[in-house]
């Protein structure tokens, strides 16, 4: 356990060293090496915890009331450490290449990146409410500074502000939650909090606060508003870390609090199922309507958080209905999707970063043809795109498969609620899957295939080696988890056991079926790869298999096709976007084509965030109107402020004298 803390400390110290050292190049390497070594050190206790040898928990006294410096690694913590330990070093290495050429606020980014990594690791290991909140805040603040890296742009500052407000609304809910949790206990240590008996109403209030507090970090709809603003603003390796890893700390927090609340009620499970389906469907619908590649990816994170939450909801329902198969499949699927999403979403953000780096544009409608110019980035992005759509033989399929079979397993004609649950999961997941395929066919197809739609895209260059290798490693991980699926399910069982409150060995029984089915899936996936390779070989061995002629694309007889005549991302997504128009509220502007000799015509669409525009902007405006009168007290005259202080002091003294406490 000490080794774990030393690892975190090493990451922070190397960040400080990067601040002090002269010159951008050594600073970049020192910071990245610090993350590698720090994560390497921390991974030793994590691996042994996953193997069943949990390190000795640490507990030191702390002068704060109710607080103690206590850390431990159980199955759940260790599992959530995995994406952090795998993605952070890779993204840091990528950052070395990505940040080359940047000098402005470079060292701040390096420092806060390392602080963010260390704070995420600490967060999943803390075992005290107060310490948890402090680390949570360090994580929020360090990521805020990473988001506002390009702070000379107004939209970046606005994104940072939105993020700061959103994360603090969450923190406020968490503060209230921990205060209520600690009522009647003399310490905020998790062990103590779990032992306190609570009424069902109290537990439900606590659960609701946890969903709001952690949901604003994880990106539950409609608390997701900061994601589509912050991710395009932050540097790409930071977006990868935030979207792939940091938002999962919200899921971790929710699960950890669940272990403190005692036996869950079915209502919580239903709530999470509804939240999950809403986030999933709306997230992917909004993603489909976006033109900015990083904004699209941010919305797709909302979708994947939805799938994870759906899995957790199924797990909770399984607990309250006492169906061990549902518990293992639901929690197992959700948790495995946490790991899988960390792999492919980080990879997608790194790929998008390489595109932005190589072309300087994020607008999908102006990209195209990059597959021939950026072959490695293209291949890695393709793997991640297929994985995020849940297609076999990649890892995304494995976790979605578990949730699907949970739906079928749970269904019993005799009990109406299981049928309703199955209908929700099956229609929801199938529709989400179909829309995700459309969304990522658009994202990959329009960016990497066809002909370049602008000169910037035509002059693209491949990313350097420091950026390519991390992408390759993540792509390999996507394939490996897909082909080693039964092992992945075994690996997730200790974490499921912590949440469901059982022995990991007892989980093996209900999981045995899933492991057997996934063995079947892996066999078919392997057969698929072999048959594909065989067909490619046969294709070459045919009489004229290698005889190829090159010509232009068939365009129905038109003689002079230009790249501008290609289908664009907007036109590709238009039918589906129109189908969901009441939800999306896509705005169309432009001058239509009129007459035989039309003058200049334009067309523009954008899809602003519905939750932001229709919920939060009006809400904050009305709050603003309420608090305006207070402004009269604020006029900048120092002597009046002194008067306020003196008056308050006198009042407090009077109260004290009168014995009112």
């Amino acid at each position: 356990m000490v080794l774990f803390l030393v690892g975190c400390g090493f990451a922070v110290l190397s960040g400080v060293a990067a601040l002090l050292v002269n010159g951008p190049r050594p600073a970049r390497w020192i910071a990245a090496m610090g993350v590698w070594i720090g994560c390497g050190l921390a991974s030793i206790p994590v691996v042994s915890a996953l193997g069943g040898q949990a390190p000795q928990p640490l507990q030191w006294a702390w002068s704060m009331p109710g607080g103690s410096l206590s850390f431990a690694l159980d199955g759940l913590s260790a599992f959530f450490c995995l994406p952090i330990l795998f993605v952070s070093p890779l993204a840091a290495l990528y950052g070395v290449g990505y940040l080359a050429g940047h000098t402005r606020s470079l060292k701040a980014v390096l420092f806060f990146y390392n602080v963010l990594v260390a704070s995420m690791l600490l967060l999943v290991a803390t075992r005290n409410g107060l310490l948890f909140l402090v680390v949570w805040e360090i994580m929020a603040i360090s990521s805020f500074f990473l988001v506002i890296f390009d702070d000379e742009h107004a939209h970046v500052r606005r994104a940072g502000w939105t993020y700061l407000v959103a994360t603090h609304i969450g923190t406020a809910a968490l503060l209230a939650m921990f205060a209520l949790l600690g009522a009647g206990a003399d310490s905020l240590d998790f062990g103590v909090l779990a032992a306190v008996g609570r009424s069902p109403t109290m537990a439900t209030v606590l659960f609701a606060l946890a969903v709001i507090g952690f949901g604003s970090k994880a990106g539950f709809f409609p608390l997701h508003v900061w994601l589509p603003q912050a991710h395009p603003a932050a540097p790409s390796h930071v977006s990868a870390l935030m979207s792939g890893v940091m938002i999962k700390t919200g899921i971790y927090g929710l699960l950890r609090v669940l272990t403190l609340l005692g036996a869950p009620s079915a209502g919580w499970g239903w709530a999470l199922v509804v939240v999950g389906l809403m986030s999933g469907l709306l997230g992917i619908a909004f993603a489909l309507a976006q033109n900015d590649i990083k904004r699209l990816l941010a919305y797709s994170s909302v979708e994947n958080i939805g799938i994870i939450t759906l899995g957790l909801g199924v797990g909770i329902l399984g607990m309250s209905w006492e169906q061990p198969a549902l518990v293992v499949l639901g929690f197992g699927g959700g948790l495995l999707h946490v790991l899988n999403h960390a792999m492919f979403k980080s990879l997608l953000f790194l790929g998008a970063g390489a595109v932005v780096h190589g072309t300087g544009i994020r607008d999908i409608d102006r990209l195209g043809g990059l597959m021939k110019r950026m072959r490695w980035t293209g291949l890695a992005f393709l793997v991640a795109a297929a994985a995020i759509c849940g297609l076999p033989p990649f890892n995304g399929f494995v976790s979605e498969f578990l949730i699907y079979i949970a739906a079928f397993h749970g269904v019993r004609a005799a009990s109406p609620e299981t049928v309703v649950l199955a209908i929700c999961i099956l229609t929801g997941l199938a529709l989400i899957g179909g829309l995700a395929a459309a969304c990522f066919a658009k994202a990959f197809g329009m960016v990497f295939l066809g002909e370049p739609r602008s000169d910037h895209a035509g002059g693209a260059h491949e990313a350097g080696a420091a950026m390519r290798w991390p992408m390759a490693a993540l792509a390999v991980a996507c394939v490996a988890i897909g082909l080693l699926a039964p092992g992945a399910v075994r690996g997730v069982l200790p974490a499921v056991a912590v949440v469901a409150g059982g022995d990991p060995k007892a989980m093996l029984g209900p999981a045995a079926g899933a492991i057997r089915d996934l063995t079947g899936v892996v066999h078919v996936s392997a057969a698929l790869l072999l048959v594909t390779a065989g067909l490619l070989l046969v294709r070459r061995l045919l009489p004229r298999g290698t005889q190829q002629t090159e010509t232009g694309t068939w365009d129905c007889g038109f003689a002079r096709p230009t790249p501008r005549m290609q289908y664009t991302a907007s036109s590709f997504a238009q039918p589906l976007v129109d189908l969901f128009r009441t939800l999306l509220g896509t705005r169309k502007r432009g001058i239509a084509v009129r007459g035989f000799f039309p003058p200049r015509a334009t067309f523009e669409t954008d899809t602003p965030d519905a939750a932001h525009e229709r919920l939060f902007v009006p809400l904050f405006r009305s709050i603003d109107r309420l608090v305006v009168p207070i402004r009269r007290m604020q006029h900048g005259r120092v002597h009046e402020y002194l008067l306020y202080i003196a008056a308050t002091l006198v009042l407090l003294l009077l109260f004290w004298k009168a014995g009112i406490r």
Partner: protein
Amino acid sequence: MTSHLNWGLPLAAWLLSPVILGIINRVKAFFGGRKGPSLWQPYYDLFKLLRKGSVYSRSTSGILRAAPAVILACMAVCTAILPWGAFRAPVSFVGDVVLLAYLLGLARFATVLAALDTGSSFEGMGASREVQYAALAEPSFFLGMLVLVLHSGFQGLSGILSGVSANTGHGGNLLLLLVAGSWFVLLLTENSRIPIDDPNTHLELTMIHEVMVLDYSGPDLAYILYAAALKLWIFSTLIVNLIFPLHSLPWWSQIPTFLLGMALVAVLVGVVESILARLRLLQIPKILIGSATLSLIALIVKWMG
């Protein structure tokens, strides 16, 4: 039945699937008052294409070249999951239905990307329509499957379908017909037949699937055509297993009955294609949602008792 013999099922699918296309064409020719091509014409076409060289667009990358193998591999692997009545599929495990749906999804993803690879606006249009209709069609497959699972318990596809055809005659027939109807709409959609799509038109603007493979030639086109035949075989197999009481027949008559059923589905597709006009594109989402509703009605009836 030993597992080695069961490999005969996918083998038969690989050998016989082009005949389905031949039957459909003969039925259409009959309705058009023509004699029509031979039933074996699809085989001649495939062999002819396999012996040719290929033409590629300069705009394309490796995606277009790799896609046909991926698409055909998906279909070929899918046939190993499908049972024929009491003859279980060689590969069967709980949840293989989900894998079947996602393998079809992978094939579609590859087709769509290959279409976008050419940079043609026609193919982009087809790709855009394909992903839209696929997203709407997917739920209806799973809802139908849920009805069957309620009927025969959750197991591998072989178990689910054999449970269904063994239980017919207990008043469940009507439900199965509803599911079969819903899946028949899926068959027409997924295989780009009239009234959803037209496999014969040469007006690129109105097509969905055919327009996406405009730039293929030679062996690649052969792979694509063969994959299309296998896909039709896969969907027909599901429907035949659903509506024919194969299980209650003596073992020696099951295979002839199954093949007869496949031929009947092909005839039905041909008849639909001959007597209906293609729908306007804007109407297609409605018919897909209608198909999902059929399954949902079956589900509710099943659930109420």
